[in-house]
């Protein structure tokens, strides 16, 4: 136990416990849950949300917030949908879509880092702006007739594993290394801990914020393109429903909403927990309303648990002093 405590924080153990509990419930309640097929389709379903949540994690670690993440995804989806149906190839379409994402991220960063609008307000504005842009571009219709050459992103399997699942893990490893082992990663944490201190210690905070917001938008763009490919349709409202779940998963994963700590692994586990709940309920045949209830109660339970642990730690420390 002591060894475990040294290696993992209490929060990580609570999270792992919650994960295992739900996994067990799934395994006990339906024989299909543990089938390879179901687990693969679970990953296929959660990867879009997971990739978006990983992008959000970076922004939230800087002490910021990106409420426009969902609609950025919609805008990128519509952009590549339009390019593809207008006859552009897969690669140019993806590049244009990524370009739009970089613009979206840069716009958020300009508002937050240069004009210094609180991130919540700035991205609330851009959220509507991007949705509007996507609606104007798509004229509110769903864009179908995506060429089959684009299906690889969301429907292809490599060694029996969905491509987007490999993408999710690849990006997760990349971001983990970026956050832990690079200077930029350390700067992201530093800004989240104390913006002024970071600035005075010579960190180019504006650069780092630009990097973070653009990274988040790019993640949303990847998620959007995966979904376009998976359902062979692009819609302006894609991703809008993801935002709150993603923020919840980031918080559930142990990233502080005030910034400064947290990480990618927690977020991925958080998204897995949410995806499993939905999947189990569908397999068992429980109404979707209960899904919201279960998701909500697990979020509240874990957050309360964390708070209690924190308070206990504080008490112990203060007694020693």
């Amino acid at each position, binding site marked *: 136990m002591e060894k475990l405590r040294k290696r993992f924080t209490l929060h990580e153990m609570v999270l792992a416990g919650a994960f295992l509990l739900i996994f067990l419930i799934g395994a006990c*309640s339906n024989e*299909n849950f543990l089938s390879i097929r179901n687990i693969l389709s679970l990953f296929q*379903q959660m990867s879009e949300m997971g990739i978006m949540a990983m992008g959000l994690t970076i922004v939230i670690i800087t002490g910021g917030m990106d409420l426009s993440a969902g609609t950025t995804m919609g805008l990128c989806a519509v952009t590549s949908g339009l390019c593809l149906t207008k006859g552009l190839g897969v690669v140019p379409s993806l590049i244009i879509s990524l370009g739009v994402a970089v613009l979206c991220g840069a716009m958020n960063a300009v508002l937050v880092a240069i004009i210094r609008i609180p991130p919540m307000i700035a991205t609330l504005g851009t959220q509507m702006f991007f949705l509007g842009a996507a609606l104007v571009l798509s004229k509110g219709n769903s864009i179908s007739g995506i060429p089959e050459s684009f299906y690889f992103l969301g429907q292809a399997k490599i060694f029996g594993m969905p491509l987007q699942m490999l993408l999710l893990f690849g990006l997760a490893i990349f971001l983990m290394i970026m956050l832990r082992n690079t200077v930029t990663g350390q700067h992201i944490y530093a800004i989240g801990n104390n913006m002024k201190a970071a600035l005075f210690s010579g960190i180019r905070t504006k650069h780092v914020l630009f990097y973070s917001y653009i990274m988040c938008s790019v993640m949303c763009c990847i998620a959007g393109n995966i979904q376009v490919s998976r359902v062979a349709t692009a819609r302006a409202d894609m991703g*809008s429903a993801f935002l709150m779940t993603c923020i919840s998963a980031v918080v559930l994963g142990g990233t502080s909403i005030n910034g400064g700590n947290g990480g990618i692994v927690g977020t991925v586990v958080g998204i897995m927990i949410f995806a499993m709940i939905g999947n189990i309920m*569908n*397999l*068992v045949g429980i109404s979707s309303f209960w899904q919201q209830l279960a998701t909500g109660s697990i979020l509240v339970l874990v957050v309360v648990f964390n708070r209690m642990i924190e308070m206990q730690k504080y008490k112990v420390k203060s007694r020693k002093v």
Partner: protein
Amino acid sequence: MKKRLALFALGAAMMVGMGTTVYAEEEYTIALIPQQVGIPYFETSNVWGTKAGEDLGCEVIYTGPTSGDAAAQANIVQDMITKGVDCIAISPLDASAIEPVLKQAKEEGIKVITWDSDVTDTSLREAYVNCCSEKVLGEHLMQRFAEYMGEEGEYAIITSVLTAQNCSAWAKYATEYQEANYPNMTRVAYEPCDDDQSKAYAITQNLMTAYPELKGVLGVTTPAPPAAAQAVGEAGKNGEIVVTGVVEASAAKSYLEDGSMQEANIWHPGKLGYLAVYTAKTLLDGGEITDGMDVPEVGVVEVKDDQIIMTELLDITTENVDDFDF
């Protein structure tokens, strides 16, 4: 410690609760997937669909997205495939976004039928359970409308968008029926409201100004009749200008009660759910639904190619508006 114990107990209770949900073994499992759960229209389909399951001895799982998210609906279909249901009866939110997963279902040997609305690639499903025949509804709308108009006078039709296939067809059959049977009636306007209630309201106001002799407004899309009734009511012309059309009972209720709308004509979403489950069960049994068949609880159905069409319609007035919960 006590708090921790309490939390543990809660967790354990949740686990037991979920673990013990055991369903009786039944012959077939049919997934009834609406466009969105929690909407009165689809909840009525749920109640009747579940009842059909009980009547026919099969398990009906009613589940769908909690918001209008086409990808979430695709996930649910995927989970239903994994669960191994025998038939998926779906009302697609997006006619094309659902196709890749329906293709998967078909490859797995799961029967797929659509109800309420259809997919673009009709080869993916075995049957489409249609809420009503365009001709029957169009003519019925005109019959009821003409009765309130006294079979004479000027009238206008408000439709959704001019490209909406179903609404345009209803309007066409209604007009043709009027031309053939009510020579003293004249259609003076045919206006699209883009399914926007405020636009339908403005259109009705303009129509009343432009045609002082206007005696009736027929709305062939659900936002139109309430909007027309509101405009007529505010002009103080309740009863002088007849308002009827296609609209749900819940949306029509207040206008029916204040006398600004005379009648709402619509199919029964519950019966639609019942027919979807009935069709699924019949196809699973290897049977067939034939033209003119009298389906219990639903009534006579019309079969055209692979479409199964309900023919019974509801006439909703102040008398019976409280009987319907959609």
